[in-house]
């Protein structure tokens, strides 16, 4: 789960991590007023769920309130396209207006989970404000990594080693130690998968400031944080993906015309692979969960059909213990409810396969049953010919 930069900064601030003075604006008049409040010279930052905003024209330094208002007018409602958004871009509905800061040095700092050690890992680099993956690729020696032992937590001396490695000295170094310790506390207490400050800066006046921040909360820990669902900006998400989320379905919109419903992420990916191999283009990735239930199958079906790009549907359910006649009933009910006339190919495996197939073939739907994965992919591609 992602949140906006301004929300991330509010959390950092609550953990004693200094951030620039700023205001969130919902209209261009508010942008103007906020700019006045900051004393004229300020940075206008579009709030979208993606990085790379600067190059896409979503960030601008302005000097007078009129200029701020004008840029606000230009930004609101605009779709920003960055390397992380996809070609359709993301709409700007909130703008962060921040005091301009004179920067002396920029760093990168983050805490995230390291799969290899099964521990949280602190990542720091003196190359801040740039694409950190690029730095990791080109000059890995500039990246400092440290896996944190959950028994001891992050210790001050460990944070100090990192601060020194960044080249900080004196009181700024000690400020940085405290900041790193606070960031770790924040990461744990807020159940983050990623907390990232990029750049962390030292101002010309010698203060540390988190200039940009990104949080990704651990979706599995939302039950411990009742406030999280309210922090989501649904305007930043695909409506079909939101709907899928409500029913605990993993849905990702793709570019093709074959709607897909599969149980299990691995099998779902393999199904996309096999469709492409047979010359088809999937319209979506949809995982109804390993143990597909009738209700989930029905909801998934509706979501696929709401996507107007889908011209046919391929269902691949390896139910195993789940009974195929029940899955078939779910498909028939959902297809009936949304009056589906699209061609459907169903590949099911599990108990009562024959009963399930018979139900489908007798249902009056435009449906074919496949014997296996390859057969199913070949059939749907042919039907859409």
């Amino acid at each position, binding site marked *: 789960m992602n949140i906006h930069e301004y929300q991330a900064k509010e959390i950092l601030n609550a953990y004693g991590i200094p951030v620039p003075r700023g205001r969130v604006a919902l209209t261009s008049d508010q942008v103007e007023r906020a700019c006045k409040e900051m004393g004229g010279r300020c940075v206008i930052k579009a709030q979208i769920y993606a990085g790379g905003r600067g190059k896409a024209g979503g960030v601008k330094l302005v000097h007078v309130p009129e200029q701020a208002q004008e840029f606000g007018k230009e930004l609101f409602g605009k779709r920003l396209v960055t390397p992380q958004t996809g070609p359709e871009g993301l709409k700007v509905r909130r703008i962060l207006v921040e005091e301009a800061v004179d920067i002396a040095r920029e760093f990168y700092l983050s805490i995230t989970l390291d799969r290899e050690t099964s521990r949280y890992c602190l990542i720091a680099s003196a190359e801040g404000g740039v694409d950190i993956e690029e730095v990791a690729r080109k000059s890995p020696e500039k990246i400092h990594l440290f896996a944190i032992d959950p028994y001891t937590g992050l210790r001050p001396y460990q944070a100090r080693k990192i601060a020194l490695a960044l080249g900080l000295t004196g009181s700024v170094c000690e400020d940085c130690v405290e900041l790193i310790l606070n960031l770790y506390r924040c990461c744990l207490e807020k159940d983050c998968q990623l907390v990232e400050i990029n750049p962390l800066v030292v101002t010309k006046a010698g203060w540390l400031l988190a200039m940009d921040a990104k949080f990704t909360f651990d979706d599995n820990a939302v039950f411990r944080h009742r406030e999280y669902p309210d922090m989501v900006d649904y305007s930043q998400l695909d409506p079909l993906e939101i709907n899928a989320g409500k029913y605990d379905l993993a849905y990702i919109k793709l570019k093709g015309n074959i709607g897909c419903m599969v149980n*299990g992420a*691995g099998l779902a990916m393999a199904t996309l692979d096999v469709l492409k191999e047979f010359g088809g283009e999937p319209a979506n990735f949809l995982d109804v969960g*390993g143990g597909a239930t009738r209700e989930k199958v029905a909801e998934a079906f509706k979501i696929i059909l709401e996507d107007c790009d889908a011209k046919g549907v391929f269902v691949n359910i390896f139910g195993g213990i789940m009974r195929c006649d029940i899955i078939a009933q779910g498909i028939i009910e959902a297809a009936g409810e949304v009056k589906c006339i699209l061609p459907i190919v169903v590949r099911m495996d599990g108990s009562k396969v024959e009963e399930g197939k018979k139900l489908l073939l007798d249902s009056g739907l435009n449906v074919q049953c496949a014997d296996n994965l390859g057969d199913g992919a070949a059939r749907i591609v042919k039907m859409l010919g």
Partner: protein
Amino acid sequence: MSILINKDSKILVQGITGRSGLFHTQQCRDYGSKIVAGVTPGRGGIHIEGIPVFNTVAEAVHYTHATVSMIFVPPPAAADAILEACDAGLDLAVCITEGIPIRDMVLARRYQEESRTRLVGPNCPGVITPGECKVGIMPGYIHRKGKIGVVSRSGTLTYEAVKQLTDSGLGQSTGVGIGGDPIIGMKFIDVLQLFNEDPDTEGVFMIGEIGGGAEEEAAFWIRDNMKKPVAAFIAGVTAPPGKRMGHAGAIITGGKGKAEDKIRTLEECGVTVATSPTRMGEAMLTALGGKG
């Protein structure tokens, strides 16, 4: 022979009184697994389906000498259940639960690493030794007793692979679903090592996915240590990039995670990689023919 579990394994079920816990307990018992105890805090003393229920794992072990736990405890308490299984000194804990918070798993994994207990999962289908014992949620009927070890990060894709193996006349010695979570107990290499030493396993089929660097690690280990033929499939060749992998996450693994890179590395290390998910059984036959 087999790895991890066999017909004599005594199994306890943590979370036996829950809906899916009970359902799968029955399924496993019907398959032939020896379920000797259940554990649900506060329900100790009752019997469910004729199986005695205890308040703690230690108590269940004391009275039944169980050595394997199957965990169905809901996410908020699941990491605690793993810790309890390790603390009771079991040989193996298989955690089926999906959705355990990262922070909880970091701690549970740290404790488990220093214990004598092996952990499979979480968020996995479990372990099966066909014809003998099933500790998990996979359908038993697709399996057949035989000589191929199966190890997988995936759930239902494993069923697809196993079905293809069985249809190709290749039975399985043991199937291990290690789970797809970022933090898991046994990794590919841990399982491959056991298959390598198991006299009744003649080849291994491995199922991987995009993300992380586990498949590459396994590939290098296979090149340097594996005495038996290995075939593999990697799902996600055509998956759109970057949906799940955070920026910083990709750094740690050195930018690894793409299917093409994994496939190339596996092939370079002598693994036969199935070019399509429809040809997994074929790939295993090829691998056996080549080295057998």
